[in-house]
């Protein structure tokens, strides 16, 4: 089972019903490292994210905050989805995270848990219009 096939079942796809004014913010509005955020960028998009608690541990629930800093054509993001899987084992999470928009372009995900030590690939999907941008981040969890 590929990552694509897995995420279809296990992701948190939320229709956030953002207002028309919710245009992605320019990079300048991006939260900084001092606020505990890290950046993730691709040619199409850039986000800032942080976890709580900040150090991920195998078997422990955490929440994620994601801020969209730059998006393709500056278009609004109307859906955002986070998921995680262990590519070497071919399984995803046991939980389906949920999201709330806490400010324009700023989301909080609850219900994330990586249940095994090893390498996890966390994927964040931004949906804008008909387009779909994926950012990925790998994390190695010790037991």
């Amino acid at each position, binding site marked *: *089972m590929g990552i694509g096939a897995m995420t279809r*079942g296990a992701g948190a796809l939320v229709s956030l019903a953002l207002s028309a004014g919710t245009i992605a913010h320019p990079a300048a509005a991006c939260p900084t490292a001092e606020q505990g955020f890290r950046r993730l960028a691709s040619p199409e998009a850039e986000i800032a994210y942080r976890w709580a608690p900040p150090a991920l541990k195998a078997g422990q*629930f955490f929440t994620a905050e994601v801020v969209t800093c730059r998006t393709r054509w500056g278009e609004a993001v109307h859906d955002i989805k986070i998921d995680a899987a262990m590519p070497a084992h071919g399984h995803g999470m046991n939980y389906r995270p949920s999201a709330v928009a806490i400010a324009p372009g700023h989301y909080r995900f609850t219900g994330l*848990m990586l*249940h*095994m*030590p090893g390498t996890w690939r966390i994927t964040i999907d931004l949906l804008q219009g008909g387009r779909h941008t994926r950012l990925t981040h790998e994390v190695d969890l*010790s*037991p």
Partner: protein
Amino acid sequence: MKQRVLPSAVAALMLAGAAVLAAGPEQAVTFSADERAAILAHGPWPPPRHPDPSNRVSGNRDAISLGRRLFFDTRLSLDGRQSCATCHDPATAFADGKPRGIGRALVDRNAIALANLGLNRWFGWAGAADSLWAQSIHPIVDVKELGLTAEQLRDRLAAAPAIAAAYTHLFQAAVAHDAAERVLVNAAKALAAFQETIVTGRTPFDDFRDALERSDTRSMAHYPRPAQRGLAIFVGKGNCTACHFGPNFTSGEFEDVGVPHFAEQGRVDAGRHGGIAALRASPFNLLSPYSDNADKAAGVPTRHVEQQHRNWGEFRVPSLRNVARTAPYMHNGSLATLQDVVRHYSELNEERLHGHAGRRLLRPLRLTPQEAADLVAFLETLSGEISFGP
């Protein structure tokens, strides 16, 4: 884009490189930095204990006394012959030593040894309950176990003056006039308060782990060599820590290790798949009004758990603390000894690992007789004294 997440103490040890244990050059057991990290993560023990936010009498002394009384009381069974202790006997580590529990009838699964329950996220082999009190309701009303109705329970408790008085004192209600379902929940919450006190003490492994953390080679040498070698297999090529990790030697989640799961001829035990269905259907789950956790933060796992096809035949990864005292093994008690369990992992029938995940995670270890004996020797060092209150 890779991030290594390691506790800083462990990172410091990694800088020091792999450690060589004890003297005796011909048999020195060595651990890689990752193995050392995995070993240290099996402690410290005991872990901090917190009251259960979903149970307002958790940690309450009077609730613990009432719960203890109820746990051993045969009034809780229809024919007055069984109690919780029938299947969870303190003399056999709060299990029963039988492959499958026998109450009013034979049940499908092995009675789980009760200990360190405050560390559980899920209860039962399939995680059908999300709290200790919700799990404690099930055997009271299950026709195969104690077989009472909520009304019968209320009437019996009301007819026992000392219990009725303790109930009124704790829950500010007269048991005879309380709603039957409420009495069932409250009795289960008192039972939970008692069961939370059942804990296992320090083990030879814990002393070794702490000595390793201090790099105290002299103390480390007290830990028997076969156990050291077995530990190296456990955290090394055995890959046991993929599932049995942390202070309680479990992820607390569900996996399929290829144990056949026929409850009887022609009837399958659905494992976690059925557990999630039961959890969602339960009027007593952590999202219900019976939870005392007002903001329902304790219900995060229940709210987010996702039922997936691979959950068929998955069972909870059991803790390995005190495992040498809790034979027989596996959800159906199908393996009699630790030797049998190690042989199971050594010879693993890959045909039975229907889940893709299991197939990639587990492969037959093909241990030599010496390695198998060492792994058992290690598992035997996980026993500590059981204590319970009040």
